[in-house]
């Protein structure tokens, strides 16, 4: 029965936006949205029905074993080729975009070449084995025994400093795998957009030129050329395989259209899919459908090479010209047709499912990777890059309501009011995205920290959740940051316990002295600084070696073919000697605990002398047991970040400036500096049982703070302006990179035009204070509590977790509670 306008109005008034979406989207989008599988983990486990794909690793391993004598990149390219040419494919009913990571719609994939411990985790995992389970166990055991001890991470562990390796992999101090087996890479879309056949031709020319040189006068300069030839061959191999992968879809679409499809409209669509896949990615796209299909193939194919956990990307910038041509100029499709394509683009991306180890699942609950798409911003010349496609993506996001991908909007002063209203509508509908990124600040930040030239910095995309990176020939970063994520609350914890970790039972940090012996706060802070430097150093050392060894231990033929600098030089994309400028950072999880804990120590131990350090350490070692009154004193009577209180805000700024100074001393493999990037995803929950009791009053097991510079939940008591003023004391260019701020706003207060104007004023203050990021949750407590009680009825409620969004019902109870506890800020 059709829904009436009155019913939709009622849903709007009740702010049940998920019903508005369902009732107003096209029947195609409705079908596709409901048909797609949920592949993000529900808290820590996968949803019933989700299965690990075993066909993919078996095809890959079969070719890998057959080509033992080949150089690694060529061996890998052949293995991927076998997968792309033989893995089962399918076309979902009503879809217009094809390509999936995995051999069936409900599958998630993993990469057995990456890490033995992940392979064994898959074997041990509950609920994801294809039936019959006995047969799957045999297949998995066979795969694990072949790869055991020989994966990229196994090889790396053999060369890492043993102490560094043990501490890095303790899980206490950081996150991540120091290999591109698990990471994310910026894509050089200007190069990729040439079309794969044209890239193959470029490689042919490079190989011919090199062959000629190798037959010429002998010289030491010739020696490295011999290794380039098999790398180029490998790049061609995977590009050819990708073209064949698309051709298989073309054939499948034609077979269905010509032999099975009875609906003439669907038959026409299938034939259009066939024509599209015959065109792209071999040749550059000509239409919006070809452009999106091309983009999707690029993203899918690279995920047969490795776990690409993010999607650095500017889809409105990439597809905008085709949108404009098809919809506005040629009028070859209607705007509704275009919305169907863009909506399906979101859904097909949501469909990508990759097995994550448990720590990643817990830290990224509800999603399979941080597909944060970058929207808006400026062109190279500084003019507004927002276009009709930007608006359309905002509109269709509200219709399909998926939690992944989400959008990061590059706000700048020239953004038109009409577009700001579309963005506000997304936030008001409770999507939690787009997050707002202050474009001028981040362009300056990219130039300051990594020396990116202005015209390149202006093209930045979000590398993962937060960090800007230019997707240019020398700006592209092939290796996540590289993979250093610090559990920063450990800095203050180790300062208090002389570097010893009571959770993992190990002397982790340096022995900076018994805190009882520190006579002044300055001595305490000096020890904090030593622990901070140790933490950053061990993480960066480890990932730097991982990065340097990656071409030898893992290898990236597809990514190399995607990088102009790698194609030009015959190198692996990850090779740090091929001209990359360097864009590394250290993600600083659980950062704000440092400021609040240091302030508590300064105030109650050193200034007021209300307690002795010995009393505090004793209380912390006992997890505050029997000391509730004292704990509440540390919670309530020590200054807390986010209240415009200089006492603690100065400490926060001091911590950041001290760390930034060290960031200028340490170097990534490219020789560039390393700022910290404070954010958390849901690492604040994952680390809850890993970080001991702290002087801010937190106990072992309590959730950590949720943001990068967000105040502790419920501890920001002086309103949104005070939060902004505290955060505004940070220099968002010099003190680090990309400071994540979560804010909860009241949907009731922000209803209607008045609500929009209040929000716009808030954005103006945010910009005036020079901040680079803010994201909003606008779902009220009553809805969230109702969703906890009756999750079946609230499947489509989305919340901003931190750096990404998730469906509320897909995150753990502890994370849900943590979001509800965040202070709802009243504006105005």
């Amino acid at each position, binding site marked *: 029965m059709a829904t009436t306008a009155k019913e939709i109005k009622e849903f709007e008034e009740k702010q049940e936006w998920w019903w508005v979406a369902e009732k107003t989207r096209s029947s195609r989008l409705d079908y596709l949205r409901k048909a797609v599988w949920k592949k993000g983990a529900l808290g*820590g*486990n996968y949803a019933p029905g989700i299965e690990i794909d075993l066909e993919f690793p078996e095809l890959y391993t079969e070719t890998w074993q057959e080509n033992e004598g080949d150089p690694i990149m060529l061996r890998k390219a052949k293995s991927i080729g076998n997968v792309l040419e033989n893995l089962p494919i399918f076309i979902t009913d009503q879809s217009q975009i094809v390509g999936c990571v995995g051999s069936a719609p409900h599958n998630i994939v993993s990469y057995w070449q990456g890490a033995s411990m992940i392979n064994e985790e898959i074997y041990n995992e*509950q609920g994801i084995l294809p039936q019959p389970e006995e047969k799957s166990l045999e297949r998995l055991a066979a795969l694990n*025994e072949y790869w055991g001890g020989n994966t990229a991470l196994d090889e790396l562990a053999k060369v890492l*400093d043993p102490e560094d390796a043990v501490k890095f992999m303790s899980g206490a101090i950081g996150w991540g795998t120091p290999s591109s087996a698990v990471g994310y890479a910026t894509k050089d879309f200007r190069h990729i957009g040439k079309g794969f056949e044209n890239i193959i031709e470029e490689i042919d020319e490079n190989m011919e030129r090199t062959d000629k040189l190798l037959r010429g006068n002998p010289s030491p300069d010739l020696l490295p050329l011999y290794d380039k030839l098999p790398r180029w061959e490998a790049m061609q191999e995977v590009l050819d395989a990708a073209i064949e992968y698309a051709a298989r879809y073309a054939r499948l679409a034609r077979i269905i259209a010509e032999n099975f499809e009875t609906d003439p409209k669907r038959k026409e669509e299938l034939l259009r899919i066939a024509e599209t896949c015959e065109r792209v990615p071999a040749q550059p796209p000509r239409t919006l459908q070809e452009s999106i299909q091309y983009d999707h193939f690029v993203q899918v194919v690279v995920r047969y090479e490795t776990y690409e956990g993010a999607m650095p990307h500017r889809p409105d910038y990439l597809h905008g010209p085709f949108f404009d041509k098809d919809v506005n100029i040629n009028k070859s499709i209607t705007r509704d047709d275009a919305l169907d394509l863009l909506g399906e683009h979101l859904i097909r991306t949501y469909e990508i499912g990759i097995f994550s*180890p448990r*720590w990643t699942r817990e830290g990224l609950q509800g999603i399979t990777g941080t597909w944060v798409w970058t929207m808006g911003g400026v062109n190279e010349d500084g003019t507004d890059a927002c276009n009709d496609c930007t608006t359309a993506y905002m509109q269709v996001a509200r219709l399909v309501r998926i939690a992944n991908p989400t959008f990061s909007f590059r706000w700048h002063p020239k953004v038109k009011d009409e577009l700001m209203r579309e963005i506000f509508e997304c936030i008001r509908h409770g999507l939690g995205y787009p997050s707002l990124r202050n474009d001028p600040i981040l362009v300056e930040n990219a130039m300051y920290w990594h020396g990116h030239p202005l015209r390149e910095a202006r093209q930045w995309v979000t590398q993962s959740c937060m960090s800007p990176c230019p997707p240019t020939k020398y700006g592209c970063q092939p290796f996540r940051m590289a993979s250093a994520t610090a559990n920063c609350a450990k800095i203050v914890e180790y300062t208090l316990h002389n570097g010893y970790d009571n959770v993992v039972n190990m002397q982790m940090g340096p022995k900076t002295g018994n805190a009882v012996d520190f006579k002044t706060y300055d001595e305490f802070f000096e020890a904090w600084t030593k622990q901070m430097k140790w933490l950053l150093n061990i993480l960066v050392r480890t990932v730097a070696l991982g990065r340097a060894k990656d071409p030898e231990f893992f290898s990236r033929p597809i990514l190399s073919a995607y990088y102009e600098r790698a194609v030009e030089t015959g190198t692996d994309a990850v090779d740090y000697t091929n001209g990359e400028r360097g864009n590394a950072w250290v993600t600083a999880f659980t950062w704000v605990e440092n400021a609040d804990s240091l302030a508590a120590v300064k105030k109650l131990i050193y200034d007021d002398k209300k307690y002795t350090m010995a009393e505090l350490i004793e209380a912390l070692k006992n997890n505050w047991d029997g000391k509730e009154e004292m704990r509440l004193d540390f919670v309530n009577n020590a200054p807390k970040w986010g209240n415009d209180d200089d006492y603690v805000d100065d400490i926060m700024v001091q911590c950041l400036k001290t760390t930034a100074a060290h960031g200028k001393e340490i170097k990534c493999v490219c020789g560039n500096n390393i700022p910290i990037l404070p954010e958390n995803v849901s690492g604040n929950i994952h680390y809850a049982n890993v970080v001991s009791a702290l002087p801010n009053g937190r106990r072992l097991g309590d959730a950590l703070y949720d943001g990068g510079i967000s105040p502790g939940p419920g501890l920001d008591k002086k309103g949104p302006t005070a939060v902004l003023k505290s955060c505004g004391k940070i220099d968002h260019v010099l003190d680090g990179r990309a400071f994540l701020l979560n804010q909860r706003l009241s949907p009731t207060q922000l209803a209607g035009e008045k609500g929009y104007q209040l929000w716009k004023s808030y954005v103006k203050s945010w910009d005036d204070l020079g901040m680079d990021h803010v994201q909003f949750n606008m779902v009220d407590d009553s809805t969230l509590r109702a969703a906890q009680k009756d999750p079946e009825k609230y499947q489509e409620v989305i919340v901003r977790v931190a750096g990404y969004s998730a469906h509320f019902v897909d995150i753990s109870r*502890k994370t849900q509670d943590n979001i509800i506890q965040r202070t709802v800020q009243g504006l105005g």
Partner: protein
Amino acid sequence: MTRKKRSSRRDNKWNQMRDGLTNLSTAKGVEARETVPDIACGKCKNFSESPYASDGRGSCSVVKTGSDFTVDPPLILLEGDTGMMCMFNMDAAKCSHFDLMDIIDTDGNECADPQFRRAQRQMEKAMS
């Protein structure tokens, strides 16, 4: 004259632990992987699962690096500042410090507490 072996920081506890990290998953075949002994490290109060990997590796808060349960009599070291690395299904029958844990969390939906979580499929079966 026998050349005196130079001291090497790689020939120390960290090296043993690093080897432990990379060699822990050495189970062969389905049967060895599926077996959880009645007295297994994963059932002990002193075992804490690694927050880094959920293949079931972890460390002991009592028995230190360098200990070896496979020799007879077992070598159990209680001094040192690094706990022994072990797997959830490691046989602890010879460990005099085994202390059966009353509450074991085999439900992986909630975020984990390394001290109580044992979310491996085999542990779920062994505890049911």
